């Protein structure tokens, strides 16, 4: 099972990358722990999580290959 993590906006300034592939992540809480260990500054930054292009609330189980996006506050228009 593979998780593609897309990283946008100011979050990509923190991570230095706009995409990561992670393996064997059971749920989004675990994903966040993993990411915050890799990039401690992420933990202090406000962002939303989208799973397969839909914003999710709270911990969500990851089954099968999943697209996850880390979305800082929107500022289009």
């Amino acid at each position: 099972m593979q998780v593609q993590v897309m990283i946008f906006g100011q979050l990509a300034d923190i991570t230095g990358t706009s995409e990561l592939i992670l393996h064997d992540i059971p749920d989004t809480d675990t994903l966040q722990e993993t990411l915050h260990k890799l990039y401690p500054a992420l933990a202090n930054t406000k962002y939303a999580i989208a799973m397969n292009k839909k914003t999710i609330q709270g911990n969500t189980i990851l089954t099968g290959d999943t697209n996850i996006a880390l979305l800082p506050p929107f500022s289009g228009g």
Partner: protein
Amino acid sequence: MESPVGKKINSSGMSERKPKNIFQQGAIPATFIAESIQKHSSQTAIGGHSIFLGQVRADETENGKVKSIDFTAFEDMAQEKMHLIREDIFAKYPLTCMHVHHSLGEVQAGEICLFVFTSSAHRKAAMDACEETVERLKAELPVWGREIMENESHQWKVNK
């Protein structure tokens, strides 16, 4: 000629409501806006058009003066979200049509980065739909603006 409220087919058929690519590279030229207006002259059931244009401001910030904004988006998600907003707005207002265009990449201060265009038989629906579309897309579309200063430093835009 008006699309009935709550129905999913409008006067120009299903094609109007299929997901459309709202993004284009760079600023939106005034001539593009003129062409879009001109195309509606054959739609003689329209009585009012409402247009909102977002223009890049040369704001003075603590990091310097804004020279341009570089826009990025999660395009796939933004297109899907825009399609849902469009469906909601067509269900709520008796619109003849709606067009939305948003810049990606760098747009200079004074240039247009957002073009929202709604049309209906009577003015109220066009104006209300335009305003609601603008508010929703600013709140819901995964798009980010990076303000580039005259001194080449940058900061991320924050929407009010």
